[in-house]
């Protein structure tokens, strides 16, 4: 039974070490070409900034968040490296899923809980992650992964905080997963 699932596994997903090396090469390419690592939460921030500006033209003056964003970005907020990268992520993820036959509209959840419960937690988790990624100046891709690759102290600290907290809280949410 175990053997069966193992072969299933190797047919469906890449060997994690191979995946890791490939990921590292993508990250290396990003650093070599653009001088910066990967990221994700920043793209969400760009979209948020664009919508805020679209609704309230004076947002740059009235909202300190917008001022801080405008300081680090000139031009349209959507013209940001991360926005283009995340669009690529959507395409890449889709391609990979299509090639492996994993395209399916569904809610993935442990058989022990309902779909609804899963979605509620997904929303809550996403909200927390959205907030946390702004404070932490990055998410697992930008701060932890890319930060570790360049040996950034802030990146390491954030990574340890993320995984440490998740481990600590795992017990309380075990019903959702196992």
């Amino acid at each position, binding site marked *: 039974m175990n053997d069966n699932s193992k072969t299933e596994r190797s047919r469906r997903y890449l060997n994690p070490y*191979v995946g890791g*090396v490939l990921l590292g090469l993508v990250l290396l390419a990003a650093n070599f070409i653009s001088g*910066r*690592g990967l*990221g994700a939460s920043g793209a969400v921030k760009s979209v948020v900034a664009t919508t805020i500006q679209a609704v309230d033209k004076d947002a740059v003056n009235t909202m300190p968040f917008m001022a801080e964003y405008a300081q680090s970005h000139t031009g349209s907020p959507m013209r940001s490296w*991360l926005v283009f990268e995340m669009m690529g992520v959507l395409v890449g993820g889709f391609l990979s899923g299509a090639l492996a036959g994993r395209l399916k509209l569904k809610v993935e959840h442990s058989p022990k809980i309902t779909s609804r419960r899963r979605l509620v937690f997904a929303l809550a988790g996403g909200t927390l992650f959205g907030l946390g*990624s702004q404070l932490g*100046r990055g*998410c697992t891709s*930008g701060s932890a992964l890319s930060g570790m690759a360049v040996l950034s102290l802030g990146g390491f600290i954030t990574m340890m905080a993320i995984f440490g907290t998740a481990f600590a809280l795992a017990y309380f949410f075990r019903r959702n997963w196992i």
Partner: protein
Amino acid sequence: MKPLKLLALIIIPMGIILAAVPADKTRHFRLTADELLQEAGAGVQFISPDVVADMLVQKDPLLQLIDVRTPEEFEAFSLPGAINIPLSNLLAEEYVDLLNQDTRTNIFYSNGSVFANQAWMITRQLGYENNFVLEGGLNYWFSNVLSATEPAQTSPNEEFARYDFRKSAAAALGGGSIVSTEGAAPATAAKKPPVASKAKKKAAGGC
């Protein structure tokens, strides 16, 4: 072979190699033409002769004067403590360590400032720092520092201060008797002149 073993066998030796190789502290990078133009235009490479005179008087150990003229001219006259690197020899192997370092302050000088400036441009383009040019060269040095002229009575105080300083410096450097310096406040002679800031354009990152 198990993938993990294979991975370990590859990356551990690589890690050992990188750990063993010493990190190159003086990382070279070349300036772009734009950056060089900016710095040259701003004149960041010039050091006032008063500052140099002060450093000489104080016997600043970090000072290194470099005469870029021909050896014959160097023989004829040179500033105290100066060494001779004729401009044509500037890029010789033996001088790289001297020119590319961040401890001492190298000051190029020549008769005017054309050759000294050329020396500066070449070394700056290679990314070397802490190299400067004596403003006005030896010509200015002679006519204004060593033979300072007394300012007119109606001149501002700084002129008098500068004159006093130059007289005493000339005496100290010319070998004559040292006249008491009164309020000889030269231009701010920082022990280590400010390093020209690199116009580095780092990519914005994050998230």
